């Protein structure tokens, strides 16, 4: 009995990387008890308002981050930090004993340095190609 329910629920949830929720939803509860009448009403109301199911083509496969997860242009992100004063920030984190902030700045600085080296290598390669 529960296998049938689980399969149906799983079909939607696995598509969007939420298959681990399938047994919780299908086995964890008998929705038809009186305790969940309000909740069932909410669910039915929400589903009735879906325009169609095309939203399934644009679903976050991971728990969404929010504001930080909106931009996907790495060059643009990097360019905004190229002139930032990491030395000054590090001084302030040390002064205020912000060890986690300091660790974060290290990770970001290493990333920017690596990106910068890659960018230089690209430019050099292009230059050498043109020169040849």
């Amino acid at each position, binding site marked *: *009995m529960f296998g*049938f*329910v689980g399969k*149906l*629920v799983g079909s*939607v*949830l696995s598509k*969007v990387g*939420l298959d681990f929720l*399938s047994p*919780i*939803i*299908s086995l964890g*509860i*008998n*929705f*038809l008890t009186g305790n*969940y009448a*309000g*909740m069932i009403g*909410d*669910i039915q109301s*929400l*589903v009735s308002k*879906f*325009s169609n*199911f*095309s*939203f*399934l083509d*644009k*679903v*976050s496969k991971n*728990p*969404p*981050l*929010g*504001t*930080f*997860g909106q931009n996907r242009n790495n060059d643009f*992100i*990097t360019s*905004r*930090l190229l002139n*930032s004063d990491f030395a*000054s*920030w590090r001084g*302030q*984190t040390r002064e*205020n004993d*912000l*060890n*986690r*902030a300091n*660790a*974060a*700045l290290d*990770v*970001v600085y290493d*990333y920017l340095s690596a990106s910068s080296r890659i960018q230089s290598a690209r430019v050099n390669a292009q230059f050498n190609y043109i020169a040849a």
Partner: protein
Amino acid sequence: MRQTVETNRNQTNGAHVLPFTSERVRMSSEEFQAIGEIGAMFYEQGNLDKAQTIFEGLIEIDPESGAAHSAFGALLTKLRDDENALFHLNKAVELNDAQIAPFVNRAEVYLRQQRFEAAVADLKRAIELDPTEKDAGANRARAMVLGIHQAIESQKEQQK
């Protein structure tokens, strides 16, 4: 004279405005956001250690950043560290209840904890915040709602 962050927050109901995100580390809101986006890049690549280091660091720089708490809460949700995830997701909602992501992720944690009514309330809120079905996070909420709906319908079928 430069306004303090606190003054700015009071005037903008929690939103960050220039010039500085934090008094402790003087970086602009734009720089703070860019660092968060590098954390997001690591997160999407599956490099969760580096993402975690960045998000934790941003929270230390600005403990009142709803965006930083939201991002760290998402990462902890992915790691299924539910207790700590709830702490940061609750904080994110408290700081800015117009963010979709913390509602979606808190609903996921609630579902794992079989707190169905609380989960549905958060899913409803996330969906209401994205009426045009464009936000991938809100669409994740819609998928969860659909999953619950299918479970309910299946149980009804089996009772006939």
